């Protein structure tokens, strides 16, 4: 008995020692601090898959030739996990390309992302980046990331030959679009291809749709209030946008395979019926990257096979104009040395991307970028469409806190499309999950 008590005391002793040593992490310093001398190499990681990053690697090779700084890019298949573990483990990459601004601002909170005002000329940056883009990574007037790639989401793809043969017109206004859908349905055709299955990320395609409709029915100002939580998520404007989206996805015969089909079709595969012969649907709303999912023979001659227009705006009683919803990759500096600063300056210049543009499938976030660099007709056309837009707004779910933007917003929209939740209850559930 005595022995047992002694070991119990020893155990208690060990535990309390551990308890006292295991305290909380301290607050990190603000500001970028002193710039150290670089060692001649810079490591970049990002979520851009290897096949899409061929142009980026070429771009970086050209930079290495000019400056002698070795720059490596590694594509991470699980970017969020990798960046979180590396940063919390004290081994951050020099620069990271974030697909979601929300993740950058998370790292601003913990003091891991460096304020760029101390490193590069951010006034120049603000002068030539598409307006609205930098707001998403600006905290207390400090810019924390440089956009390196833009995705235009508000694009509607259609099969050119069959579309023209059937006598359909590219819609100019939202009312035109609704009329066109009706016409297609009465012709016995399916208007939309819509697939949202994306593994654990299922639902982002739906949130994109709701954001598009929010921008058009409520307008960009209300949209900004919505993404920054100035208005609650279950505001009438949001519920109406969700219901409007419901009309597209729930109307019988409007979406290929119906709501269940859209829930079960992977987003990359969902475009395939569009380019089949005869087409399984006549319209598909998806960002510019979707061309890389099309069959090779279609990709070989895109302009002959697919056309593209901007999802129309001019909603009656809504925003007068055509907005463009977009996303992008943003480069944040996590280590402060002279080589990193030089690379960041390069990424921030309006010339960045000439090599990348030549590879295709890439859009510059800079309004000063020379569009003649784009190799394909489709890319030039998309750049043109984006520059004509009345307003540009960043993907709303990427701006919201992750628990909403990559959590309940996705889940509840899946439940809404599946018919388990109505628009009002879904919005209320999302509002309740919003952690400030």
């Amino acid at each position, binding site marked *: 008995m005595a022995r047992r008590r002694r070991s119990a005391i020893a155990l208690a002793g*060990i*535990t309390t020692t*551990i*308890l006292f040593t*295991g*305290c*909380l*992490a*301290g*607050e990190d310093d603000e500001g970028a601090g002193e710039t150290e001398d670089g060692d001649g190499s810079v490591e970049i990681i990002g979520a851009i898959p290897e096949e899409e990053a061929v142009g980026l690697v070429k771009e970086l090779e050209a930079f290495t030739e000019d400056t002698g700084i070795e720059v490596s890019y590694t594509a991470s298949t699980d970017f*969020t*996990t990798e960046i*979180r573990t590396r940063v919390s483990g004290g081994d951050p990459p020099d620069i990271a390309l974030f697909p979601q601004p929300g*993740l950058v601002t*998370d790292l601003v*909170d*913990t003091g891991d992302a460096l304020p760029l005002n101390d490193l590069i000329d951010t006034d120049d940056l603000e002068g030539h980046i598409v307006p609205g883009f930098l707001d998403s990574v600006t905290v207390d007037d400090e810019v924390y990331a440089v956009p390196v790639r833009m995705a235009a989401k508000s694009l509607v793809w259609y099969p050119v030959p069959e579309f023209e043969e059937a006598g359909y017109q590219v819609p100019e206004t939202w009312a035109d679009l609704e009329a066109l859908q009706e016409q297609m349905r009465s012709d016995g055709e*399916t208007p939309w291809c819509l697939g949202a299955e994306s*593994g*654990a*990320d*299922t*639902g982002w395609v739906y949130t994109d749709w709701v954001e598009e409709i929010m921008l058009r029915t409520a307008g960009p100002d209300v949209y900004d209030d919505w993404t920054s939580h100035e208005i609650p998520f279950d505001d009438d404007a949001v519920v109406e946008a969700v219901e409007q989206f419901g009309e597209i996805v729930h109307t019988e015969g409007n979406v*290929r*395979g*119906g709501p*269940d*089909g859209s*829930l*079960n079709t992977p987003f990359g595969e969902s475009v395939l*019926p569009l380019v089949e012969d005869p087409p*399984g649907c006549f319209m598909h709303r998806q960002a510019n990257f979707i061309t890389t999912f099309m069959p090779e023979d279609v990709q070989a001659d895109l302009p002959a096979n697919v056309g593209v227009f901007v999802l129309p705006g001019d909603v009656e009683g809504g925003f007068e104009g055509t907005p463009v919803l977009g996303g992008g990759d943003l480069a944040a500096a996590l280590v402060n040395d002279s080589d990193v600063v030089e690379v960041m300056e390069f990424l921030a210049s309006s010339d960045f991307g000439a090599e990348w543009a030549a590879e295709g499938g890439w859009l510059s976030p800079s309004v000063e970028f020379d569009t003649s660099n784009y190799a394909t007709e489709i890319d030039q056309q998309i750049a043109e469409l984006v520059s004509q837009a009345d307003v540009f707004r960043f993907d709303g779910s990427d701006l919201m*806190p*992750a*628990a909403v933007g*990559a*959590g309940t917003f996705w*889940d509840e929209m*899946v*439940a809404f499309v*599946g018919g*388990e939740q109505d628009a009002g209850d879904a919005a209320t*559930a999302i509002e309740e*999950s919003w*952690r400030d």
Partner: protein
Amino acid sequence: MIKILNAALAIVAGVGGMLALFWILNLLVERLPGRWEERIKPYVFIGPAIAIVGLFLVYPAVQTVIFSFADKNSQKWVGFENYTALWDDENFRAALVNNLLWILVVPAASVLVGLLIAVLADRLRPGNEKIAKSVIFMPMAISFVGASTIWRFIYDTRFAEGDEQIGLLSAITTGLGFDPVAWLRLDSWNVNDFLLMVIMIWLQAGFAMVLLSAAVKGVPDDTLEAARIDGANELQIFFRVVVPQIWPTVIVVFTTVLILVMKVFDIVYVMTGGNADTDVVANIFVEEMIEFGDDGRAAAVVVVLMIAVIPVMIYQVRRFRMQEAGR
């Protein structure tokens, strides 16, 4: 090549270092006066093990409990806020219920299926028994993610008219003239949960079968013979003679599968991502930790899971002690 060298060096240095450490400590202890040598010696040998367990098991566990009372960046104390937030989270409560369902169904079903196969296979000719058992055991070698990928081809459904069904289940049901069904979204009566559990049972039945089969074969023939002479029928023999004798093995299989089920994650993550009310606790932890970056709540989820496992552990240890005492 350098990697291989490094690994070899690490093994030599690690094992050699440990040996040297024990040898030196032992040498030192042996120089102590008689009684002290005996007193200290056990701790010299058990000490490093305790230190390692402490460093890699106790310390992280304690740290996790501490972090569960702090905010999402582990910088400020928030009291019980993480726990109350979890309790208010409908999703988390649903996940708790789902975990409970998994715990109730999967271990029991694995044991039942395994036992059924073990008893039936016992009656086959030896060659056939081997083949049958190998086939049933094979899924054990497949990872959860691999198994989920295989089962995707069973639950897949196509809805667009004219598309061919590539999912087995839907091919059968639509072939019989029914409408296509989104199997993994059938959340009434938790049907989709059960469909996911089938995957785990498929994986674990082989394991249960192997152990139970050995136990069934270990039942002494004379007890069976005695029962037959007393006029018992086959069912009576099975339930009154065989089952009581293999009961300890049944419990071992049951608790082993149970502990595995408490950690269920991969299958749900791959198949549904927790949608349509199929979330489980481990899935919520990953979501909080990695997607939402909320370390406080993630830690709280783990603490809840840890507390839930404790009763099973206590039962396991007690039973083990009883068994040891009985020897």
